[in-house]
């Protein structure tokens, strides 16, 4: 960053704080909403797919193909159906997340040692007991890793949502590009990067904690 830009950025912040904080809050809201919906749908899908290996491979394969579609193209494809704005952006982001989340939730559950599950059944634990006390805690590090990747990728792709009027930090970036306003571009870049890094650190810490718990380390 050029030295000369820093005073300009601070000046911009002091003069138009709403131009920075409104997009930031919008971005957080967009990301939060997307993740919430993504996790609910991915959990339901994974529970349905858990028992069939070939069906889960099929579905994960389908989502991985969708994941390969560039976000601009997917936005363009869905605008005729859902119009411009936040709704379409959330739908696209939720679709992308299904690949990461379903894959990780399934591999999390598949990573649980079958001998541990067998002994749980053998001892007379009920299905809900085995799910909540054994399978879910043991699968949680891999699931949290998926949520971490999905969060960071959502924060990134959500900036592109600004092109279809979804708001968020992308607005700063695209406005800056259109008017060649370096300060806006810098604020947009800085905040979206910081947001991604902060969320990544937070979830990585949670994942590490879960991994330690699973391995029985204090």
């Amino acid at each position, binding site marked *: 960053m050029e030295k000369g830009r820093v005073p300009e950025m601070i000046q911009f912040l002091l003069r138009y704080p709403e131009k920075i904080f409104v997009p930031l809050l919008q971005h957080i809201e967009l990301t939060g909403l997307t993740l919430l919906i993504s996790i609910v749908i991915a959990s339901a899908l994974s529970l349905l797919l858990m028992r069939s290996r070939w069906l889960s491979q099929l579905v994960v394969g389908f989502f991985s193909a969708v994941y390969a579609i560039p976000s601009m193209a997917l936005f363009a494809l869905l605008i005729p159906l859902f119009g411009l704005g936040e709704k379409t952006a959330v739908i696209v982001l939720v679709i992308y997340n299904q690949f990461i989340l379903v894959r990780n939730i399934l591999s999390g559950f598949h990573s649980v*040692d079958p*001998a*541990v*599950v*067998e*002994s*749980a*059944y*053998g*001892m*007379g*634990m*009920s299905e809900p*007991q085995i799910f909540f006390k*054994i399978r879910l*805690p*043991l699968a949680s590090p891999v699931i949290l890793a998926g949520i971490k990747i999905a969060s960071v990728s959502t924060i990134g792709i959500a900036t592109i949502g600004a092109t279809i009027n979804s708001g968020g930090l992308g607005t700063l970036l695209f406005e800056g590009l259109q008017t060649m306003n370096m300060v806006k571009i810098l604020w947009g870049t800085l905040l979206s990067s910081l947001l991604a890094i902060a969320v990544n650190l937070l979830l990585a810490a949670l994942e590490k904690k879960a991994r330690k*718990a*699973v*391995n*029985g*380390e204090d």
Partner: protein
Amino acid sequence: MATAVEFRSVCKRFPKASYDAVSNVSLKINEGEIVTILGTSGCGKTTLLKMVNRLYEPDSGEILFFGQPIKQMNPIELRRKIGYVIQQVGLFPHMRIGENIATVPKILGWPKQKIEKRVDELLELVQLPAREFKQRYPHQLSGGQQQRVGLARALAADPAIMLLDEPFGAIDAITRRSLQDELLSIHRRFRKTFLFVTHDIHEAFRLADRVLILNAGKVQQFAVPAEICSSPANDFVKKLVDSAREEQLEWKRGVCRK
């Protein structure tokens, strides 16, 4: 003497298999005896065991648990009355040794103090001092110690019978012998019914009140060890006993090359 487990013409074939894993097995296991189930891998011994706690269901025939058909019992309730130990141990890696052992008592809603007392008692029984081991996690224990915990966990709610599926199969020879001794002393103390699957003829004969020899899903002989040695029921049993004898002779002659 009461019958703990009875098999009546039990058959089990797995989907896509061309032969019965367990073929028309009928036998009675007395309360308080140790029965070892001996056979080569794939002979149906694990299948037979897992039908007792309904991890597998037979295709035909029935199994009685103290006179009651297990088909009419709730499988979860049934399993809580049966201790289950497997070769891979299957301790819960995210729970401390104490919590592992307390699993079934906790499910059964025992009062806290009673659970604590029981856990300490069981740890002493399997020679792992509670003070040292209760707060540890499974990965901090050796294979032999883990299986001791597996045994304690299975005994926790004072089950009527114990099913043991090659519990010492992955344990070194020295530790295995001392675990066998401990198993025998636990048995002498509580006189529970033990069903013990193994492919090791020495282990089978060492532990058993009666040995059940299985091959290709069929019972070859079910008798006390001495009877099997003196009058093997068929060629398969004879071959099995002879192979153990030959091994013994080799040891006497000295297997170590000079």
